[in-house]
């Protein structure tokens, strides 16, 4: 992954979600060339200079949706070129600044990949900066820790993902491919056994079903990701319940202005929250008198739409006021989405009082309930772990729309396909597997390697095990 410093990598570098401006960043020897090819004017810029170059232009984008046809778009954009070693990563870096629509940015990234760039791994830009000497030692540990956390998170999400229904289908494709590789390998390694492990026609037929499945999948996955980039959690509560304080505490930096004054937060604020097993978007909303449910509010506003789109709700209750349980409203209790009730400001009450309130709340609600103090940082660990659990749960219950077939998964599938096509072509020309076994094996193993990036790599031992359980081999 990180060892390939000479490859050109690409990623969206602005936070997810809609914003006025979005940035796609590339780093590596081909960064400038790839960025240049996206522009209609294709103006030649100096190959090397001390100073960053900045140009306005028009991005030419086209996509081939699963539904067929070709869509194309032209976007005004700005191109920034930074020259090695005067850049963040000390390599050539290009930045494309354009409109901040997630679907468009995604498309820009895809086109960069088609032009030879590769999707960046989490932390890869920073890692490059480090390896190229742009970051000092004090940050080395931080980089390592970050990569660790992100990868552990990915691993868990991947595992969770692989526990669901979608996963069963993917696993079955992976297993079928492993079986095929095992058969071709067997033809090479056990040539003196009187067994025809597989014929070219059989192999080709099976390859075709695998290729079909992957192609179909890719088609669906592409469209689904643009719609749903990840889970969104929304903080809900009366004014001064402590929503902004909680957001800041969870995020670890003062993103929202918080004050003891009710109504400090006026508009919607969004932060990206990194958790043990993935990331989610956390929305802070202005508090409002919650006696009417959002759907019953006159003039459904911006807040309502965000509330409707949220995947999970965090309902904050100020228990330092009188009769807090009275503020536990029916429309919150009835919400079918995952909801967490947080009894905030517990530091202002005695333990006995807290227990009483907790019991009262528990009696009324089946939602998860936690006692916290956002101000004092009490109970935040539990909030984080609840959010993690919810992400994993969501990942497990994704349906065939493939919510979590993320960019990396798709990248792996896309790279596996050409190798499968090549293997299939070898079958076409052969009368016996023996004629082409070494070539087919090379291509199939390349494909297997890519799929292994999603569901864990396999070793020769695994292949041999398959051969030995299926065939009576050996003298």
């Amino acid at each position, binding site marked *: 992954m990180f060892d*390939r410093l000479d490859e050109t990598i690409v990623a969206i570098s602005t936070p997810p979600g809609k914003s006025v401006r979005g940035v796609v960043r590339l780093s590596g020897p081909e960064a400038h060339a790839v960025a240049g090819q996206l522009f209609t004017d294709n103006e030649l810029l100096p190959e090397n200079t001390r100073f960053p170059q900045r140009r306005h232009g028009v991005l030419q984008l086209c996509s081939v949706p699963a539904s067929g046809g070709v869509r194309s778009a032209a976007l005004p954009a700005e191109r920034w070129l930074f020259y090695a070693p005067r850049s963040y990563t000390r390599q050539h870096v290009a930045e494309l600044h354009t409109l901040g629509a997630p679907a468009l940015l995604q498309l820009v990234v895809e086109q960069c990949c088609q032009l030879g760039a590769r999707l960046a791994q989490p932390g890869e830009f920073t890692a490059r900066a480090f390896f190229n000497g742009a970051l000092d030692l004090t940050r080395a540990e931080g980089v390592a820790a970050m*990569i*660790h956390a992100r990868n552990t998170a990915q*691993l868990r999400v991947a595992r969770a993902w692989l526990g669901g229904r979608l996963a069963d289908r993917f696993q079955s494709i992976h297993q079928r491919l492993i079986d095929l590789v095992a058969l071709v390998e067997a033809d090479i390694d056990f040539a003196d056994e009187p067994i025809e492990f597989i014929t070219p026609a059989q192999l080709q037929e099976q390859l075709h079903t695998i290729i079909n499945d992957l192609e179909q999948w890719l088609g669906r996955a592409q469209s689904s990701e643009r719609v749903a980039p990840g889970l969104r959690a929304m903080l809900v509560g009366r004014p001064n319940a402590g929503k902004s304080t909680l957001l800041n505490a969870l995020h670890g930096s003062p993103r929202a202005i918080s004050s003891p004054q009710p109504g400090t937060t006026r508009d919607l604020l969004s932060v990206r929250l990194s958790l043990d097993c993935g990331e989610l978007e956390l929305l802070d909303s202005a508090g409002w008198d919650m006696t009417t449910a959002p759907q019953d509010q006159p003039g459904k506003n911006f807040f309502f739409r965000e509330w409707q789109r949220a995947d999970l709700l965090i309902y904050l209750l100020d228990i330092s006021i009188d009769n807090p349980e009275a503020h536990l409203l029916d429309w919150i209790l009835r919400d079918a989405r995952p909801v967490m009730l947080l009894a905030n400001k517990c530091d202002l009450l005695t333990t006995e009082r807290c227990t009483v309130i907790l019991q009262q709340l528990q009696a009324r609600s089946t939602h998860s309930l936690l006692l916290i103090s956002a101000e004092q940082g009490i109970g935040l660990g539990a909030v984080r772990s609840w959010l993690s659990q919810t992400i994993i749960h969501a990942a497990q219950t994704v349906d065939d729309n493939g919510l979590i077939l993320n960019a990396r998964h798709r990248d792996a599938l896309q790279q596996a396909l050409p190798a499968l096509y090549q293997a299939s072509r070898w079958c076409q020309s052969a009368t016996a597997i*023996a*004629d082409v076994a070494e070539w087919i094996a090379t291509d199939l193993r390349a494909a297997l390697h890519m799929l292994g990036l999603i569901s864990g790599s396999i070793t020769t031992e695994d292949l041999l095990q398959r051969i030995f359980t299926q065939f*009576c081999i050996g003298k």
Partner: protein
Amino acid sequence: MLIRYNLNMDRTFDLIVIGGGHAGAEAAWAAARLGAKTALVTMQIEAIGRMSCNPAIGGIGKGQMVREIDALGGLMGLVTDAAGIQFRLLNRSKGPAVWSPRAQADRQLYAAKVQEFLLHCLNLELVEGVVEELLTVEQEPDGLRPLRRMVGVQLQDGRRLAAESVIITSGTFMRGLMHCGEQKSAGGRVGEQAAVGLSGSLEALGFTLGRLKTGTPARLHRDSIHYEDLAVQPGDDEPVPFSFLTSRLEQRMMPCWITHTNERTHEIIRANLDRAPMYTGQINSTGVRYCPSIETKVVRFADQPRHQIFLEPEGYDSERIYCNGMGTSLPVDVQEAFLRTIPGLEQARVLQWGYAIEYDFIPTRQTHYSLETKRVEGLFVAGQINGTSGYEEAAGQGLIAGINAVRKLRGQPALILRRDQAYIGVMIDDLIARPPDEPYRMFTSRAEYRLLLRSDNADQRLTPIGREIGLVDDLRWNRFEQKAAAIRELEKLLLATRHDGITMLEYLRRPEQSLNQLLTRLPCQLVERYSAEIRQQVEIDAKYSGYVARMHRELERFQKVEQCRIPEQIDFEQIRELRIEARQRLTAVRPETLGQASRITGITPADITVLWIHLEARRRTPNAIPQ
């Protein structure tokens, strides 16, 4: 210097090899040829080089390894060419990348040839005796070195031999226990005693020993077989030698025969499973999956109506026929009964019954990539003792252990072949990074760079390395250089000649084009200068050049990480960003490069990145990060 320890040594050597099998022979040969004063300690000199099991060398994956041993200046290829009685190039219908030479050998002649080579080898002394104890002394702890180091060995008869390096290649002899039905007998091979003292000595030094099992089939009298019912399997008409030094094989060739078991055979075996040590629990060590006994085949593949049996002659003058495919540990009367049901063997006279053997091995998590043990400095292990099976696997390790033991004595870095350099490199990397729990056998599928590791180019890959370390003599080196020069010349010629608008060399890359056809367009006198061997090599190189170039590009990219060295004194436990499991696994294996670390079971790419960042940070300020 040894006198300091007052150990009363009888003789002093630089290096002692324990065991004269295929690993021991290569180790002793390499060490002595590198100039170390070497002793090979064996129970019987006349048993050196003995083939305990089938009378064959090479095969798929294994044949490539023999070529590599030869290219490095080892023994096995030369001996096989001298003692072979049938040669076949397996996988000939496929591409050259998977061509694998295999030979039937005359058992007697094979052992005699090995002994001849060793007896005439300068610096090498053959010592008959049984090693009773490994002699070690404590050394000052410096946090790096093991706490003990080798000083010699003690023999059963009381003699003490001094050496700073000892290589154990004990094969199946350590606490060998043979099973034939309910009967058990101690021994390393039929008629040969087991080595018991060595196991105890290793355990006393703190090594953990494991138990493995292998088996061997019955040997029949050649005159008691009805050949008229059997299919003949001849060797190749144009036999291909193993050694790059052998130009032609002139000896008389012998055929093998093929027969099959049938339902009646299987019935008898099934009816007597309660008497098979593998099924009664008498043997509970791990057996070889790819070399299953006949009873295992019958049980596991109950729907197969028959199994193939190869009848292989053990030599020109030998009356023994080896029944390949019929390994068993069933009692004698059952073996007798099922043998009678097999076509051609109805009246076969058995000279030696099949048996299974259990033996001690040293699980490889206790071993470095150089094949030196982690626990005792100067103690090396090679062959079946490392949990492998097969003569070729043993020989490959023996050669490397011999080389590295000498290099260690001289303070030179160990020779560690990479996975893209040699099957031998693949094998040792597998053994150390993923310690096997069943006998390890080479397959071409274990090599991710299979298209690079061909039997035809073993000399191109390894002879320069063998020359550099001093094992390739002038004779071999001159031949290699001549061949290399001729190849370059012919390639230049093809590059300079155009055909159909492109150079002939490019033209040759097309799958359907053959060099000989192409050469008809060149003047005769130009072409005749190049032997068939040279032409074939040029053609193969051209056919693979596309893939090879791609693999080299890929390799180059990974090389930076692959070759990134991990300092010996690193304490993985102190790298907080690593997962606890990763810390433990890295500590256990102690990889020497990041590439090796990446192949350890349970290590993720993220772990490698974290480790890499840590190494980079250390490199920048060696003193800033405390160890």
